[in-house]
């Protein structure tokens, strides 16, 4: 048995199992997001006219700041959780209150901000008659970005739950790693959407 600094002792076997489990879960997540994106690509490639809903509504100027700000948010969360993993690796036993606030509540804040901004934009599009039922282009945007919003919310909830459960102590390293890699997958999928929707 090996124990790491903090409240929870974890065996090497459990750590290895958690590591394998994390990669398998992420592989499954990648396949899910990949299938969603493949659907979008197939539909768009097979279409002679492709509608881009955000270009025809009054709030179209918001779409690019939305894409940019959310990219920054997701990258920030990835960096924040990554810093937590780094702190564990270099042996910080406990985080101070402000540190924990940065490392743990950043994902929660990002989740709320991302989702609120997404709901706001989705509402604007729907109110302008460009809701998901208005065309396959709009539907694709709603489903793919909505899937990221759901993923971000789930990540935020897990981060909040972890912060609450291990308040005053360092969480097990496999949880930190899982969160870090999870946010990296979300960021990668988000960047794929940004390229696939806005730049191509």
């Amino acid at each position, binding site marked *: 048995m090996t124990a790491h600094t903090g409240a929870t002792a974890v065996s090497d*076997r459990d750590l290895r199992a958690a590591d394998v489990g994390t990669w398998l879960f992420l592989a499954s997540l990648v396949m899910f997001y990949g299938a969603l994106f493949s659907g979008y690509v197939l539909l768009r490639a097979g279409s002679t006219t492709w509608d881009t809903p955000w270009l025809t509504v009054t709030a179209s100027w918001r779409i690019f700041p939305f894409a940019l700000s959310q990219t920054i948010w997701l990258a920030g969360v990835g960096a924040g959780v990554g810093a937590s993993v780094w702190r564990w690796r270099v042996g910080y036993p406990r985080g101070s209150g402000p540190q924990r606030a940065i490392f743990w509540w950043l994902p929660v804040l990002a989740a709320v901000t991302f989702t609120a901004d997404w709901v706001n934009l989705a509402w604007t599009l729907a109110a302008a008659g460009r809701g998901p039922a208005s065309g396959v282009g709009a539907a694709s945007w709603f*489903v793919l970005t909505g899937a990221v919003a759901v993923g971000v919310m789930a990540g935020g909830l897990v981060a909040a739950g972890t912060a609450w459960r291990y308040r005053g102590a360092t969480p097990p390293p496999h949880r930190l790693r899982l969160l870090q890699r999870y946010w990296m997958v979300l960021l990668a999928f988000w960047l794929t959407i940004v390229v696939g929707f806005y730049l191509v």
Partner: protein
Amino acid sequence: MRITDHKRLALVYGVTAGAFLLVGFLLMLLLRWQLAWPGQPIPIATAIFGERNAPAGILLPEFYYQLVAMHGSVMIFLAVVPLATGGFGGYLVPLQIGARGLAFPRLSVAGYLVYLTAGLLMIGSFALPGGAANSGWTSYPPLSIIASSGQTVWLVGVFLLGISSMLGAVTLVATVVAHRARGMTLMRLPFFVWSQVVTALLLLLAFPALQAAAVFQLMDRVVGTSFFLPTGLAVSNTPLAVSGGGNPLLWQHLFWFLAHPEVYVLVLPAMGIVAEVITAHARRSLWRYGLMVGAVVGLGAWSMVVWAHHMLLTGMGTTLSSFFQVTTMAVSVPSVILITALVVTLWGGAIRYTTAMCFALAFLPMFGLGGVTGLPLGLAPTNLILHDTYYVVGHFHYLVAPGSLFALFAGVYHWFPKLTGRRMNETLGLVHFVGSFVLMNAIFLPMFLMGLMGVNRRMYDGGLQYELAQSALRWNPYMTWSAVALGAFQLVFLWNLHWSARRGEPAENPWRATTLEWTTSSPPPPGNFAEPPLVTGSPYRYEETEA
């Protein structure tokens, strides 16, 4: 013993999947009645299914198609796969690798609860105003999008089953990677464990595609999007009020990306079970273990690049069609290697014709027949003729019914002493085997003939109004009576289970098997092993023990 103990959880999985198996079987009996005696009333059908589904005891077409769709869905998603993975895999894999339990026991329990919820939702959808899903287990759009509300529940259920599969697969693979006993190298794993790992990886990587497709179809049904609805679609000469622009074939691609590997999810655990049974009951080590491991891994990987042979009729173009025809022919190579290796293992063995061995031996030709009849379906020219006929139903059922189910029966008879410390009654077992073997063939063999005669597989009345089908339809009553008799023989099996668990002959390791699960007491204690086992060689050492 807590529910987080893998043995108890596996038993719960097994009982639940067995209950769903019974439901799927009863659905089959109902639709077989309709095929045997089209339009004839079923006694007490109205009392059970109501005037809405069976007025005056006669099944309505809408209800018949619900039975067809739900029979396939229940059997595949809720019965055979959970039985093979959650039941057999969950119980045996930790024991065979010398682990104290699963890597993530609570995650496993969560996976079971999600599976149970999905199953109850899908079965419960029969009570909805429009009934259960009725667009086949494949749920092809646009039909499935304009179908009754049961289809929405089906989609939610499938999405949940994907989550359940992911939780179970993550747990199983992590257990094998991280919790093996000392000395248990990868090439010392029992073949059954390999088959379970490949199965878990297939579920993990292929199911998300169906989940994504389910999200798209749910959006089409609930929100009014058009992912799968083309422009200008009209139903009963009335244009649908949708934006259009979607593609129904997108569903087929995403669906078969899961559903073809799903066939191997049904088959690979069966091969793992048969391999264990054959080695133990023939007193022979597995022939070319390394080659078999390579074949099962190759089969799993290759199964993910053949999906579109189910879509050869969609006009995909010759290049793509040729690619999928070639990959489909090639996927038979590892299958043949596996079957050949199992047959060669028997050579020179001291074969004991126990019930478990009889079922395992019967699996080989039954699976072989299912595989060989699949070859014409993998080639576009013959697929064109056979695709919509009963030939496909016969082919698939030979793989899954006398194929996978026979292997599962073999597994039950083989490992029953491990679960209970008692043997199952052999006389009752052989009665069960003979009855099942004869009747399974009586049900499914005529389907090949019917298919070759061109009888369509989607007809509510079995094809009564078609001249070409007339001479074939006389088989239907015999097939239905065979199905009823098959059910009766399963009662013998259930009685044997019940009786043997209490009064069966006490036995610790009646087969003198050499795999790790037999080195601990039967039934195994919590934690599985009194002392952590140390593995020093191959799991199959029958030549040594015989010498």
